[in-house]
């Protein structure tokens, strides 16, 4: 084989290796019905459950925006685009669960699956995803998946249902034997993004910290990377992370 032809093969192989990027991510397709509130634009399939209940969904979302801003003292935030699908299969790639959502804080957007009924599960889902956008806009990126996912649930408003701190405290009390160790949750390499147990344990612990010590101290550990989190928490709270965890377990 000549050097020239060998060169061609090498170059072609290198070129082909990035074909995925040439195609890139998919874009939303199909018809959308849009609904506006003061801080959101909601996109729903025409005639869908999300379309006909858009007013109620936007009320929940607006309340959450106000609540999170009040908890952290944010003066203002971005307008958020909310895309609601009838099922996860409408997306490429599909969402992993029947009711699931994903936030995109860098572009002030989220997408989620919203089907009837308008219950606490759905309220919890959309407010959690909205919180990702609100919190990252106000604070920047969290240092751990534990903080990123936990905080988005820890500050959910309970105006329209017991889905915030009250729920999390009761849930933790009822699931005490199943709770994951905080020392494991702060390790991103052990974080399971499909584990409701991990989400709820993280959220319950962070809701406790906010309730007992306030958001000023929480903001000081918000950015801590996994390797630094325990040390940073001990500095900020004046006690080891294990002691904070024991304090939380005693309180639930």
């Amino acid at each position, binding site marked *: 084989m000549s050097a*020239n032809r060998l*060169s*061609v093969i*090498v*170059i*072609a*192989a*290198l*070129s*082909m*290796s*990035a*074909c*995925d*990027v*040439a*195609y*890139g*991510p*998919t*874009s*939303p397709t199909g018809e*959308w019905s*849009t609904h506006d509130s003061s801080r959101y*634009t909601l*996109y729903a399939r025409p005639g869908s459950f999300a379309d006909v209940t858009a007013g109620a969904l936007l009320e929940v979302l607006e309340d959450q925006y106000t609540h999170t801003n009040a908890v952290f003292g944010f*003066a*203002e*935030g*971005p*307008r958020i*685009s909310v*895309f609601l699908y009838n099922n996860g299969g409408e*997306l*490429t*790639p599909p969402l992993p669960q029947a009711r699931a959502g*994903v*936030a*995109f*804080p*860098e*572009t*002030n*957007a989220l*997408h989620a699956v919203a089907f009837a009924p308008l219950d606490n599960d759905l309220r919890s889902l959309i407010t959690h995803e909205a919180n990702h956008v609100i919190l990252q*806009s*106000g*604070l*920047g*990126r*969290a*240092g751990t*998946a534990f903080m*990123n996912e936990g905080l988005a649930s820890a500050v959910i408003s309970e105006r329209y249902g017991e889905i915030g701190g009250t729920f999390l405290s009761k849930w933790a009390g009822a699931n005490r034997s199943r709770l994951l160790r905080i020392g494991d949750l702060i390790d*991103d390499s052990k974080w399971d993004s499909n584990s409701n147990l991990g989400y709820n344990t993280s959220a319950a612990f962070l809701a406790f910290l906010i309730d007992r010590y306030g958001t000023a101290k929480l*903001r*000081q550990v*918000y*950015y801590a*990377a996994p390797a630094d989190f325990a040390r940073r928490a001990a500095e900020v709270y004046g006690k080891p992370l294990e002691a904070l965890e024991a304090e939380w377990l005693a309180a639930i």
Partner: protein
Amino acid sequence: MRAPVITASLIAAMTINAAAAAQPAGANAPAAADPVTGWSVTAGYETFEFRDISRNMNPPDASPVKWRGEGPVVSARYQHTRPRSSHAADVTFSDFGHFEYVSPSRTIAGAGGDAGSQIEAYYEYRRHFWRDLGVRGFSLGGGIQGIGARLALERHISTAVETSTRIAGGGAAGIVVAQFDRWNRFSAQVAWANGGIVSNRHTEHSADRQSAVSTSGGNWLSDLTVGADYRITPLLHVTGGWRTQAAGYSSSHMSFAAERHSITAGLVYVR
């Protein structure tokens, strides 16, 4: 998410033809088999589109909303061409403003002050493997690029709250080129490059100095350029081109996809 940190500029791909077309018959021009050297400057308009990615899979789970800006792009290129090969060095600078959030049916203006810029430089070696392939003047070739790039993004949440991102790194790409150079004054070419960049990212949020984080990451890139070249005199050519580039960036807690599209025109001095 993947950055356009990026790439291999090829704005100049357009200028590449300068080499081929630069084998003029004029009294001041070199003979056909002689090496040809060209310097080019091009300028034009470029759009930049950014979509954050939440789940890195194939295809990635990316935002339904694009953060899109636009602005001028300028490029300078040096190229030394022999009958069967060429070397080139290129520097391109893009400056983005007028950002907006683009969804399937709405466009929302970005906060004032949103801005972005990118500078990229590369060295490229090309080899013309097959000439007069099928028809006279049509050739296929390939090459390798070495790339250095720096991307800067400033995104405002409000007037007083902003986040900044800097991604800088280097990498390599393979390139496949098809060129049509049949006539004395006109030539055209298509170039497709694919490769990767390893980079360092630094991100900060104005809410707190503790938000500053530096981490390593990288991106794949794919770059398609269509260009044409017209010889005005033996020493001076005009050149124009269209370029589209896709890139995907990933690092700890941040992934995104980006696209750039540009149209440029310029002059090539050949000797």
